[in-house]
């Protein structure tokens, strides 16, 4: 009797999960299917998820006829990859220093990082714009890259990670005559892979999907990143949802690929603050 009711409970839970998975997938599947439909089929309305006449025309059009789409893709890759690489390096260095190196000011810097961590990003937007303008960095890659080179949240995360890092390894390295830098790059960093992978997902996604800062910094369409480009596309092709959806699919793929690739580490990243996982 008890077993039977427990089993029906399980089915109810499965049903709830399946419904939610359905709700999650519908918009994406609908967009994906539209990206393979022709304009007349889309304009006719209806709710067919399988295109009547499957076509790659939309993808061809945005890459071949829309001169800037490839450029936007390249800009996004350029900015997101650079930002991610520097964050991995700089956040880890700062987190390591805060966790492991004793120096006057360590405590104060840690408190500052914590304070900075709670400042909502939007609040620094306008001064950031003024500073970038005075540097002459509007409409340039460094205008998007420089403000994003480090991230207080992940400095904090790396500090927590290095606090639990086995001390013996560093002591052994010190006995071998390695200095702090050699120890960090040759011994510590190779063992920090799970934390670095978790950072990679969040930093890459954040940079890849960022909308407001590029909107403010980049006014020249050649310098747009994909989210801005998509928005411009929307203005240009108001009713051409087939093109817009094809462009949307292309711009979702890289972040999705990074997530799929590092997903295993991502869960570790969220859970390594404590307990099993």
């Amino acid at each position, binding site marked *: 009797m008890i077993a039977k009711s427990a089993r029906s409970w399980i089915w109810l839970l499965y049903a709830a999960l399946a419904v939610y998975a359905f709700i*999650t997938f519908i918009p994406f599947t609908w967009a994906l299917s539209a990206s393979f439909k022709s304009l007349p089929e889309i304009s006719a309305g209806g*709710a067919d998820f399988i295109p009547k006449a499957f076509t790659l025309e939309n993808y061809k059009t945005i890459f071949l006829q829309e001169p800037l789409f490839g450029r936007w893709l390249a800009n996004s890759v350029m900015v997101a990859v650079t930002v991610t690489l520097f964050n991995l390096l700089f956040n880890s260095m700062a987190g390591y220093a805060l966790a492991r*190196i004793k120096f006057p000011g360590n405590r104060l810097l840690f408190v500052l990082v914590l304070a900075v961590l709670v400042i909502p990003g939007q609040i620094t*937007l*306008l001064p950031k714009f003024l500073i970038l303008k005075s540097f002459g960095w509007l409409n340039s890659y460094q205008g998007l890259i420089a403000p994003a080179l480090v991230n207080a949240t992940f400095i904090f995360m790396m500090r927590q990670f290095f606090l639990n890092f086995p001390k013996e390894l560093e002591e052994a390295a010190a006995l071998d005559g390695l200095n702090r830098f050699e120890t960090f790059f040759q011994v510590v960093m190779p063992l920090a892979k799970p934390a670095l992978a978790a950072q990679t997902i969040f930093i890459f996604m954040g940079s890849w*999907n960022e909308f407001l800062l590029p909107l403010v910094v980049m006014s020249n369409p050649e310098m747009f990143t994909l989210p801005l480009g998509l928005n411009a596309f929307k203005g240009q092709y108001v009713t051409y949802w087939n093109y*817009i959806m094809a462009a949307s699919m292309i711009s979702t793929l890289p972040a999705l690929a990074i997530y799929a690739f590092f997903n295993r580490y991502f869960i570790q990243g969220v859970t390594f603050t404590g307990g099993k996982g």
Partner: protein
Amino acid sequence: MLNKTIWNKQSTRETVSGYLFMTPAIVVLGIFLIVPVIFTIVLAFYRVQLLGEVSFQFAGFKNFVRMRSDERVWIALKNTAEYVAIVVPIQTILALGLALILNTNIKGKSWFRVAFFLPTVTSSAVLTLIFMWIYNTNGLLNSFLGFFGLPTYNWLGDPDVALKGIMLMNIWATAPLFMVIYLAALQDIPESLYEAASIDGAAPWEKFWCITLPFLKPVTFFVIVMGIIGTFQLFDQSYIFSSGSGGPNNATLTIVLLIYQYAFKNLDMGYALALTLMLALVIMTVTLIQRSLFKEESLD
């Protein structure tokens, strides 16, 4: 004596390497976070001329006085407050519910977890475009509602529902992120507590009420604070939905969108900075109120 010099040498070396390791962080956070905060606080009391050479002129409290009679400030505040008040509780409860289900012993949970996370990986621009298309008058949502004989809406054009369309989308997109955080916290609850409760004959809902919920209090505080900070800064979706106008009829005008318009459309940087400062104070106040509420509750 010799010992001391060696020690000194070593501690100097440690200090030097400590600061070298911190240099990139200090420089970047200094220039792009700490200086901007100071700028915002100071320049909110200035008139800032952006055209040509940037120039500043002290304006006292003028920027703040002006807010009181600025009708659009009140509309933006009302829209944003409504958005926060509806989205934060729903997304928190949804995240908790999903996490609780995924924390049971069912098969395929890692698959579900990966699947649910999809919207969180997608950019706000892409999500907004997909939803705009689904919300179209002859779009998927209306076809669906019509199929069940439910009322259909002009989701994008009707001021009464435009903001609700954004709410729906963002609850859907943000809940999975908080679900993952809840899942991590749920796994930290010691199994022995549940076992002890079982021996004492506690019913499942009693276990949930007396063990799970109290344990989740700190993470719930975190989730709500992050939710509040995130929702108060709503911009991308409103901007893309309304092509930057905050329409229809100011229905999707949020505080950050208003700040953007004043700074970059009206080139009124000083006033926009004053609005920014106001937004920061609102977020801080709400966070503090929420913290005191949580503290009081834990005293009970």
